C-alpha cells in the first residue's frame, strides 16, 4: 500500500518536536479521519529558519508531515506557501484513500503562517507577490 519513501519518512521522521516560543504555530485536525497535526515555525527575516511538528495519525500523515517539514525548512515564506498537497502526495506516491493526509500537512503550514502574519502583518505577501512567485516557479 505504501511506497518505500513513505515508510522511510514514517520510521525516521525529520523535524519532530516543539519549538519554545515559536514565531508561528498551529494545530489542525482532519475532519476525514481524526488525524491531528501541530506545527511550530521559527522565522528569520523572510525565511523559515526552523520548523518542528508533531502528528497524531497514520503512516501517511506522519510521512507527509515529515516530507513537508523537510521541504519547508530554509525556504522563504513565499516559497513555502507555494508548496501544495498534490506535490507532497505525488512525491510520496500516496494511495487515494490517504490523499487527505497530505492536505493535513499543508493546511497546518498555512495555518501556522497565518498565525505568524497575524502578529507580523507586514510579512504577509501581497497578492501581486504571490502571483509573481507563481510565474517564476
Amino acid at each position, binding site marked *: 500500500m505504501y511506497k518505500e519513501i513513505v515508510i522511510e519518512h*514514517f520510521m525516521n521522521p525529520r523535524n*519532530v518536536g516543539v519549538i519554545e516560543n515559536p514565531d508561528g504555530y498551529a494545530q489542525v485536525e482532519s475532519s476525514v479521519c481524526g488525524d491531528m497535526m501541530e506545527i511550530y515555525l521559527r522565522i528569520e527575516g523572510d525565511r523559515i529558519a526552523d520548523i518542528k511538528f508533531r502528528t497524531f495519525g497514520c503512516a501517511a500523515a506522519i510521512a507527509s508531515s515529515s516530507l513537508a517539514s523537510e521541504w519547508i525548512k530554509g525556504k522563504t515564506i513565499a516559497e513555502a506557501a507555494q508548496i501544495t498537497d498534490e506535490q507532497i502526495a505525488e512525491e510520496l506516491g500516496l494511495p487515494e*484513500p490517504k490523499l487527505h493526509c497530505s492536505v493535513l500537512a499543508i493546511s497546518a503550514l498555512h495555518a501556522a503562517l497565518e498565525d505568524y502574519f497575524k502578529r507580523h502583518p507586514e510579512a504577509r505577501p501581497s497578492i501581486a507577490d504571490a502571483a509573481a512567485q507563481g510565474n517564476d516557479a
Partner: protein
Amino acid sequence: MSTRRVIYMDHSATTPVDPRVVEAMLPYFTERYGNPSSVYRLGAEARAAIEAARQTIAELIGARPKEILFTSCGTESDNLALRGVAWASRHKGRHIITTPIEHHAVTHTCEQLEREFGFRITYVPVDRDGLVDPEDVARAITDETILISVMYANNEVGTIEPIAEIGQIARERGIPFHTDAVQAGGQLPIDVDALHVDLLSLSGHKFYAPKGVGALYVREGTPLLPTQTGGGQEFHRRAGTENVPYIVGMAKALELAYASLDEEAPRLQRLRDRLIEGVLERIPGARLTGHRTQRLPGHASFVFGGVDGEAILMYLDRANVAASTGSACASSESGPSPVLEAMGITGRQALGSLRLSLGRENTEEDVEYVLRVLPPIIEKLREFSPICPDAALR
C-alpha cells in the same frame, strides 16, 4: 520480504491454510474435478465429497445435513441470512433487531434494507465490555419484528455474547434468530440447539481453511428467500456450481479445529492472558477493550492514548509482527471504529486500537517478543504525537 519469520498475530483477520487441508483439497482440482451435478461417476464422486463435508459440519455443530448451506464466505452467509429472511418475511413485518457491534456484513446489509427497502432496524446497545443485555433485546421486540441478529463473538474486541439467552427469548416470541459465528467457528463450541439459533454463519478462513468459502446453518422451517438463484444446488437455496475443493477443505479444517479444541483453547488462553497482562503492565495508559474473561481464547485488544492504530501496525510490521487495528475488513473505511464507539470509547482514543489475535503457530516466545517490541513503538509514536497521552486517556 524479510527472511525473518513473521510473527503472525492477526488470526481474527485470516489464518494460513492448514497443510492437511491443502492435502485434502488437492485431488479435487486436477483429478476429481467433476461437476457435482453431473450424473456420471466423476460427478457422483464430487457430489459424495460435498455431502460428506456437509455431514461433517452438521455433526460438529449439532445440526442436520439438510440444514447446512455452503456459501462463498462469511459475508455471503450473513447477507443470505439477513436478506433471505427479510425478503421471505417482508409481508409479515419489516423490523429487524441487531447490535451496533456487528460485522459490516451485517450492519451494512441492515443499512441497505433500511435505506432501499423500507425496513426499520433497532440497534440494542452494548455495555463498556461490549456485552448485549438479553433484556434489551426482549424489550426491542415488536409485532413487526421478523429477525434478530446478534453475533456470537465480536471480531474487534473478542467479547462473547450471551447467545443462548437471546436465542431463548427469540424462540419464545417465535422470531428467527441469526448469529454471526464467523469468529467463534472452530474456537468456541457450537451447538445450534443449545444456542437456540435458527441461522448461524461460518467462514472457513477463520479456522485454517481458505478464504472464499463459508456455510450458513438454516434451521428447518426458517423462512428464507434465496438471494442467489439459478441451478438447483444446495437444496435450491443457493445456486452456483459448488466449490468442491474448498467445501472439502472447510469440513476438514473445522474437524481439525474441534478435534484439538480441548488443548488448543486453554493454550491460547494462557498466551492471551500473558499478552494482556504484559501490555497493561508495560505500556502506560494502555487499556484492554472487550470483556476481560468472556472473550475469544486467542483475542487480545487494546487502545493506547495519543497514537494512531495504523501507525502502530506499520511499526510492528517492520518488527515482523502482523497485527491489526479494528476489523481488517473495515480498513478501507476511515474514522473511529463504530464498535469501540458503541462501547463508549470515542473519538481519537478509538483511533489508537490494536488487536493481537493468536493462533496455532504462536508460541510463548512470540508473545514475549511482542511484549518486548511493542512498548518502545508506542513510546516512539507518542513522541511524534501532539496529544498528551494522559489527556487522551481521560
